[in-house]
């Protein structure tokens, strides 16, 4: 039957004059009643008479969206369905997530005159992405940066990253991270991953002096090491969306600075329980909650030279309404046993006790830590207050405070591409030197 069709060229010869005439006629007629037609154009979808109750993204915990897209999602809530606006937004989400396709569906709302909009992301069979997951500059501690390449083939994700991080630990570590993830293992609720890391370590003079002096010797394992390698197999289970549990092992090998000394291992069982949820309410309020508990237990039963248990918890809650936002972040942790330097807790970096120098607080970090932070935002302006203490078991904690002001394109961890430029001050007696912080995605 298809062979009976006229050729495309012949069809064009017939259609072009006809449709051109139709277009001319249509345009002439449209000029007379342009406004009416525009109003009616939005009514192509019969559901445009309903009010949008909520706008969501399915599996939203898998994705990070920019502030502008989240804002656009909020703007749809409370107004009549605008089919074109929803399609445009789907196109923007598709572009930002580099998805194969983004579709939407309308669901019945809580009231008979309301509907819910649900976007669904189709990632496609394969893709490749280059990104900068972290970039930061601290006028006191220097730069930190990471570049990452991610390739995805079906449910297999390969990632490779190069990084130099002088921010998050007592040491600066520079090296590579290579990871393979299988996103679906028989079920979408189970995934597995293998990660290999290799780092070269550099130390601040204060840290080396503290190690040499024997301070914290009772709680510090391994001393200073030249490099470390980590192999980490893990499996993640979706217990009840959005609650996930990751279990696995971390086989960490520490090469001492003196080659004659044998290397030490810090092999640990790892467990992470994580909850991440986002709510977009009908009154244009966006709330996000990210909470996690991480346990690393190094034991001799899995060949570890060092034995310790490290517990860490974090809770971050953000609420945004109109142009205002508040973010509250709490972290805490404790270590039992002799943990190596990379496991110890540090405050005074680009996200905690901003304005303080982490080497002034404790050049070796501590095995006890608690920290809280509150950030208020109005449009792009941010004002923050940090408080916390890091100490060793058996010593008295000294609580420190800091405050700062800056500008940011986003709020917290949840938004892709968020940039922060800030000046932070330690709150203390005497002279306080401000610290300039700039960065992205940290």
């Amino acid at each position, binding site marked *: *039957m*298809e062979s*009976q*069709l*006229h050729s*495309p*060229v012949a*069809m*064009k010869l*017939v*259609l*072009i004059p*006809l*449709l*051109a005439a*139709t*277009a001319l006629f*249509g345009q002439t007629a*449209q000029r007379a009643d342009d406004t009416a*037609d*525009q109003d*009616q*154009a939005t*009514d*192509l*979808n*019969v*559901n445009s008479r*309903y009010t949008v109750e909520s706008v969501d993204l399915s599996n939203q915990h898998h994705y990070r969206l920019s502030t502008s897209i989240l804002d656009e999602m909020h703007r749809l809530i409370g107004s009549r369905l605008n*089919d*074109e606006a929803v*399609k*445009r937004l789907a*196109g923007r989400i598709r572009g930002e997530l580099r998805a194969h*396709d983004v*579709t*939407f*569906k*309308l*669901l*019945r709302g809580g009231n*008979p005159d309301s*509907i819910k909009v649900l976007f669904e992301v189709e990632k496609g069979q394969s893709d490749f992405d280059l990104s900068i997951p972290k970039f930061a500059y601290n006028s006191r501690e220097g730069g930190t940066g990471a570049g990452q390449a991610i390739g995805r083939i079906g449910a297999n994700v390969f990632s490779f990253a190069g990084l130099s991080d002088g921010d998050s630990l007592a040491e600066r570590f520079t090296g590579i991270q290579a990871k393979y993830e299988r996103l679906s293992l028989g079920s979408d609720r189970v995934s597995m991953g293998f990660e290999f890391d290799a780092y070269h370590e550099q130390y601040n003079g204060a840290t080396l002096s503290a190690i040499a002096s024997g301070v914290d010797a009772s709680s510090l394992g391994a001393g200073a090491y030249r490099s470390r390698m980590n192999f980490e197999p893990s499996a993640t289970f979706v217990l009840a969306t959005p609650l996930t549990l990751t279990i696995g092992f971390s086989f960490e090998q520490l090469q001492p600075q003196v080659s004659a000394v044998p290397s030490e291992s810090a092999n640990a069982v790892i467990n992470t329980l994580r909850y991440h949820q986002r709510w977009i309410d009908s009154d244009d309020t966006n709330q996000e909650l990210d909470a996690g508990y991480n346990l690393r237990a190094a034991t001799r039963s899995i060949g570890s030279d060092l034995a310790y248990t490290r517990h860490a918890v974090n809770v971050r809650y953000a609420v945004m309404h109109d142009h205002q936002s508040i973010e509250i972040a709490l972290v805490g942790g404790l270590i039992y046993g002799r943990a190596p330097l990379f496991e110890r807790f540090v405050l005074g970096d680009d996200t905690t006790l901003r304005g303080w120098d982490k080497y002034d607080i404790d050049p070796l970090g501590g095995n006890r830590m608690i920290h809280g932070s509150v950030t208020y935002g109005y449009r792009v302006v941010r004002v923050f207050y940090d408080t916390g203490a890091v100490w060793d078991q058996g010593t008295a904690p000294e609580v420190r405070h800091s405050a700062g002001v800056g500008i940011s394109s986003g709020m917290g961890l949840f938004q892709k591409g968020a940039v922060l430029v800030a000046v932070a001050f330690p709150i203390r007696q005497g002279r306080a030197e401000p610290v300039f912080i700039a960065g992205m995605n940290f």
Partner: protein
Amino acid sequence: MTGTTKRSLAAQVFLQALLCLELLGLSASSEDLFVRRFADQIRVLAPRLHFLSGKSLERLRDGVTVPFDFQLRIAAGLKNNFVGQPAVERFSISYDVWEEKFRVVRLRDFRKSAAGLSAIAAESWCLENLLVPSAGLPADKELWARLDIRTAEPKEQVSSNADSGISIPALIQLLSRPPRPQQDHWTLESASFHLADVKQ
């Protein structure tokens, strides 16, 4: 007959059966398209055609507006000798997620629309509003009517609707090329007829 010949024959029969099934999927027989006169225009009926089905119906039930492109042509003398002006229309169909009824808008003229329709009624409404002028059709020749229907692809839907009216270039481009594999499409032909014999 040797075993090889039998296998070869079976393979041929199987392939022919597959081909028939494929053709059935793309078109319907001449008994499925009936021609009627409406004043000085020709329109068609296709009681066995249900284009609100499959993926298109799924998308509609998800609340998405799905445009369908229609073309009705008349051939004279030979089945592929099309004469006169074809009828070309884009109908935008949506589904009320609360009332579970369809709404159809003829994009060439937004004032022409119907709501609260069942699937069959929505399909019929589209055909009722697809009219070919009978003036100029040869009265002394054997005639055939041919109906082509396609869903617009998602990308084309965005570009066409964004113009707040029918996008003529998009429609020309769409109808002048073979349908893409992911597009639902239907082709129906009527039995031969003479203009004088067409019922009202």
